[in-house]
């Protein structure tokens, strides 16, 4: 049994002390598998290090009456100048094991061939991971600590690892931490959430995960205020990074994926839309969203999603078969309104996504929302942002509908642009790139706050600089 009683861990940093764990208590019996969920930096790895005994708690007691592994598949303990074989020899000595026997196992399991006799420095990261996992398996423990093993290696190796861990060692205790919530759900018998240094135990995964989602939802993630990203691809890349780092986004898409796998299209749609509401410039989940609305025969929404995916960087080839199907169902000609891919070069030349349209509609028309058909109409007709802004500025009546007004769906397309003024203005500035005083972007942005004539103000500030049609319009 492992018994953790009232453990606290405080790290002293330059900025003061950082209370990573407070009041953590739990017991782990033989054969039990504890999965710990928590966002990056929540202290999961720290807890594992404390349990492993590699690090001491600031206060509290950890007692182990069974042998505990080091954090599994951890590659850092390799001496890079030594060969794989030497590293096996070292571990065999430390744990008093038969070296020849271990070597034979590692040779077979890690599939490194002649590389086993080369310095670890020359290994690829995949090879290191395989060696690390194989070395972890040569020593038998009563309790295994598993920190992100899910990310290691190709599918076949992953399967081998799973066999070693969960079939051959099914009777052992384990503590598993992973970003992959599904991995925890599938392999654990009890669960815990680590949030704001608190440790909350659960018996049921669904309860744990939904509580976790609630805890994460209240946490504010700062919006990137960086406007100086001239080209569209780098802007999108930055936003893509932000989305994969956002735990809220990950939880929502994870739930969306689970619902999709069950064939629950409606729930999947809701989860994906909530996720895309947080990060509307994320590309892969627009395609996923397209699939789940298409399955519900919501073709207008699906067409928008597929167009979004392409506008934000998914290769046309990946989306075309689905897009074709969607067009066929609407009896539309694909040739007449083709998909517009994201290309190189300035923002003005790129196809608009629905989020761009939303921001521009707010800026140009002062409307808080557009419905699906209105959005789709603008997307179909405008292959570039320059065209879009031009036609929005010239088209005072706003719409000539070519798409049928058959559906009146709700989120995310009709969701209003962020009510906070500065948010949509920041997005507008990211699109239009006016010359701002970057030492004080807040103040610079504030000058655009009045809705009336925001576009002309931005143009006067040097925005829409190389947007040919928009510039023409304002010259005359």
């Amino acid at each position: 049994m492992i018994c953790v009683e009232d453990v606290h861990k405080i790290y002293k940093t330059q900025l003061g002390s950082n209370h990573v764990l407070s009041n953590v208590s739990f017991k782990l019996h033989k054969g039990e598998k504890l999965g710990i969920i928590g966002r990056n930096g929540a202290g999961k790895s720290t807890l594992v290090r404390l349990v492993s005994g590699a690090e001491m708690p600031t206060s509290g007691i950890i007692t182990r009456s069974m042998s505990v592994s080091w954090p599994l598949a951890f590659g850092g303990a390799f001496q890079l100048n030594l060969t794989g074989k030497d590293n096996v020899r070292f571990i065999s000595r430390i744990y008093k094991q038969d070296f020849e026997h271990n070597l034979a196992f590692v040779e077979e399991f890690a599939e490194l061939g002649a590389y086993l006799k080369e310095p670890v420095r020359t290994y690829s990261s995949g090879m290191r991971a395989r060696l690390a996992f194989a070395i972890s398996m040569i020593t038998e423990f009563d309790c295994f600590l598993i920190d992100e093993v899910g990310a290691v290696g190709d599918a076949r190796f992953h399967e081998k690892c799973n066999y070693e861990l969960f079939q051959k060692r099914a009777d052992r205790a384990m503590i598993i931490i992973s970003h992959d919530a599904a991995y925890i759900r599938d392999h654990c018998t009890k669960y815990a959430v680590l949030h704001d240094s608190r440790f909350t135990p659960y018996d049921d995964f669904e309860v744990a995960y939904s509580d976790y989602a609630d805890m994460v939802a209240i946490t504010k993630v700062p919006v990137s205020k960086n406007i100086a990203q001239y080209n569209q691809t780098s802007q999108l890349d930055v936003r893509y990074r932000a989305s994969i780092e956002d735990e809220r986004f990950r939880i929502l898409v994870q739930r969306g994926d689970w619902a999709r796998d069950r064939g629950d299209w409606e729930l999947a749609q809701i989860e994906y839309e909530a996720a895309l509401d947080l990060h509307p410039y994320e590309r892969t989940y627009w395609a996923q969203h397209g699939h789940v609305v298409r399955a519900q025969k919501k073709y207008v929404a699906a067409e928008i999603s597929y167009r979004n995916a392409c506008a934000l960087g998914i290769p046309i080839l990946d989306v075309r078969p689905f897009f074709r199907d969607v067009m066929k169902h609407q009896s539309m000609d694909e040739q007449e309104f083709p998909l517009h891919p994201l290309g190189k070069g300035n923002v003005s030349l790129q196809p608009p996504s629905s989020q761009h349209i939303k921001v521009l509609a707010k800026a140009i028309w002062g409307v808080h929302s557009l419905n699906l058909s209105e959005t789709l109409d603008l997307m179909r007709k405008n292959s570039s942002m320059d065209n879009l802004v031009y036609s929005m500025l010239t088209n005072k009546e706003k719409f000539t509908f070519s798409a049928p007004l058959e559906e009146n769906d709700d989120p995310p397309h009709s969701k209003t642009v962020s009510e906070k003024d500065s948010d949509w203005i920041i997005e507008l500035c990211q699109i239009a790139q006016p010359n701002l005083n970057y030492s004080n972007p807040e103040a610079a942005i504030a000058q655009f706050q009045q809705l009336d004539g925001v576009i002309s103000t931005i143009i006067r500030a040097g925005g829409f600089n190389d947007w040919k049609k928009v510039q023409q319009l304002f010259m005359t």
Partner: protein
Amino acid sequence: MADSPYSVNQGFRHSLAVQIRVLGALLLRETLTRYGRHNIGFLWLFAEPMLFTLGITALWTATKSVHGSDLPIVAFALTGYSSVLLWRNMPGRVIGSLMANLALMYHRNIKVFDIFLARVILEFGGATMSFAILGLLFVSIGILEPPEDILKVFAGWHLLAWFGASLAIWLGALSHEYEIVDKLWHPFSYILFPLSGAGFLVAALPYAAQEVILYFPIVHGTEMIREGWFGERARAIYDIPYLAIFNTILTSLAVLQVHKLSSRVVPE
């Protein structure tokens, strides 16, 4: 299971066995990492200090260095410079060694102290073998008389090693928290070299200088080794209790610092 490889508490003898096994593994790992398997491999362990000593011996012989006695210069250089290597290389290798081996802290059987100790033992072995081999060599080709009292040489050598080891472990533990230790050690060790008694006999100094120089603990060890080797001719002045007390204090500091560090160390 008397021989379980895990550190579920099984008594002192078991712990000792684990400790020795871990030290052995660390020593081999250190040797391999440092010297590799190329050319003469681990022989560098003492070939390197031997080259140092040979170089210094040649230099002092060529310049006929004044050292204030009628002792043969080869013998003088061998005893003097070997002692310097003994106390100077240990801290040099131990400082910063934990940082390089932080990942090993994941193996619960490996303690901070083991990592320091492995390096200390390695350095001690290198310096000692270099001293012994050169001594034998010089004696056998007739440029050096055999030591008069080999036990005294042995005792002096170990007192110096004790000093070096305590200093090394103390500084090693300090250096993990205070980077400046690493920066200061190099100038410090260079200044300490001429003050260590390696290049002169205390008896040859004016009385006032003797008073001062005898505050340096290393001098006592060096003098003792000289007396063991040359007997009366060395006119050695030293105080064993002084060196021993100094070493004890240094050892206590080292143990305390390692203890403090162990509760704080964060593996990579």
